């Protein structure tokens, strides 16, 4: 059964890839024009983020945070591994989300404010291509950040494993597979959240977008609590809470920190379900964002 649950995500990817390849005749010409434009806009988004150096600063900060627990003393190597993994994944998630919020919330408003969007939209670029390009750029930035932070965490775990390996009674388990899976799921959560932030930024001010993003993060990360709260409420507040519960992405479903840090067996199937739901959700969210931006006066 564990083997099967590990195979399901792989089989899913193969099925999706096969469908994409087999139906290329239908979608390839339609997006043939869009892809270069989307890619160019994504590249300029990444270049702008690099210049601001916020990303580099956050990576250095997180690296320091990830390394710092190695200097503490622990009751056992097991406890040490548990703390390193749990703390490391939490740091990746928190800083990833903070960066996702601050990168995504400013992407489109900044272009409008600095009027760089004028010269781009005067070229043969459709507005949905612009939105998708911005989203792809944000995904690349966040991907690099999560990859670097995960790399640092893996390095910390491997080094620590080497240090304590020769000690008597060593039970240090870097648990690398589940850690990588949890980090990847973390990235998927960021991708979903980023899509939603971009949607909000097409209609709201930057401040409003940032505030909304924090609220969504809070609701999305505590879905179970939020659902219970909605069940206990009555009247209009119940309706409002249930609507929010329904439309806010269930970021909780992407959280595998507990399984990875407590050496529990990973539910890859539920991870795969979360990814599929996330893709569907993000597709709809970006579609709406493109429609809103299409009607926006810049």
């Amino acid at each position: 059964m564990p083997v099967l649950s590990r195979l399901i995500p792989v089989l899913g990817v193969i099925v999706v890839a096969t469908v994409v390849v087999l139906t290329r005749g239908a979608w390839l010409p339609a997006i043939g024009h869009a892809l270069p434009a989307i890619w160019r806009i994504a590249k300029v988004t990444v270049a702008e983020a690099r210049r601001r150096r916020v990303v580099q600063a956050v990576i250095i900060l997180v690296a320091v945070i990830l390394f710092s627990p190695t200097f503490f003393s622990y009751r056992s190597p097991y406890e040490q591994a548990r703390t390193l993994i749990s703390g490391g994944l939490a740091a990746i998630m928190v800083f990833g989300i903070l960066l996702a919020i601050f990168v995504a919330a400013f992407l489109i408003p900044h272009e409008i404010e600095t009027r760089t969007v004028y010269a781009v939209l005067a070229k043969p670029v459709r507005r949905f291509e612009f939105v998708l390009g911005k989203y792809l750029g944000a995904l690349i930035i966040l991907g690099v950040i999560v990859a670097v932070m995960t790399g640092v965490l893996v390095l910390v775990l491997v080094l620590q494993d080497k240090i304590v390996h020769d000690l008597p009674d060593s039970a240090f388990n870097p648990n690398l597979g589940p850690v990588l899976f949890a980090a990847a799921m973390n990235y998927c959560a960021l991708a979903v959240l980023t899509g939603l932030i971009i949607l909000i930024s097409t209609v709201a001010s930057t401040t409003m977008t940032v505030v909304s993003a924090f609220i969504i993060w809070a609701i999305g990360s505590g879905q179970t609590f939020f659902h219970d709260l909605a069940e206990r409420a009555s009247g209009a507040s119940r309706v409002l809470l249930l609507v929010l519960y329904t439309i806010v992405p269930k970021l909780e479903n992407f959280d595998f920190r507990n399984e990875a840090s407590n050496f529990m067996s990973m539910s890859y199937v539920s991870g795969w379900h979360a990814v599929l739901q996330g893709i569907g959700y993000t597709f709809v969210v970006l579609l709406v964002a493109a429609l809103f931006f299409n009607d926006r006066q810049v």
Partner: protein
Amino acid sequence: MENAEIVLQIEGLTKIYRSLFTPVGVRAVDNLSLAIRRGETYSMVGPNGSGKTTTLKILLGLIFPTRGTTSIFGKSISDLSVRERIGFLPEDAYLYDCFNGEELLDFYAGLFGYSKKTRAELTEELLTLVGMQANRRVPFRECSKGMRQRLALAQALVNDPELLILDEPTSGLDPAGRHQMTRLILELKRRGKTILLCSHFLAEVEEVCDRVGILYSGRLVAEGTLSELAGEPTEVLITTSKLEAHVAERVAQHPAVLNVEDETVRMGRAEESQVWAVLQAIHDAGGQILEIRRPRPTLQDVFVREIGEVRE
């Protein structure tokens, strides 16, 4: 040029900005209609808030009209094939400052789907055209205002556009920079580009434009070629050597002479024979004639006159 194909057409364009605080709205453009023909250089001039930039933004599809229509090459701007044939230079050169000149041009050329080789050739050609080869690797944020404007013009030319829309191309430039930009626009005009230009610098407009539209409060208050707008010369100015007092007095008594000041004899709309008579009188009195001019009103004069009339 009158029979040439219409490249850009605006019909009954109105734009009203409404907000919570101004439910009635602010009328930025009011029933504007104009047409620009192939190869023509047309300038929209007007004071701040006259609707020039709003009109350009509507033309480019950045904002949407309240009423009226615009078309470029007979199609809507939402048609991608239109945007493949136009170039736009935004006011104040709003471009990505994370790039240098070379990277900027490569980026904008990439939006047209050009291959790497074509992009490299275009970049080289355009950097040469705008005189930025030596500064090609200077980051845009470190470029002077003049360099930025030249790069902004270069990005507008990456697709070798048939129609160029230039919004205040010389804004913020020093006299040398303005002169350089004017030379570039004249060169593009010589290459047969159709140009729509918005500018505050009327002398530069006068130098490059075939036709001018004067906008005030969103309305087109006057339109035509410079000579149509300026009308016929209304006076004759004769510059002479210093005239002795009694000579100046005698010349001033001529019915066609309005006045004599220092070394200038000013005549009204005089017939040729009357001008000859005055010249003869000056000559007979021993005066030396240095110059004879029939000056036309400048665009500045026309602008002040038209705006003044509308205000009244």
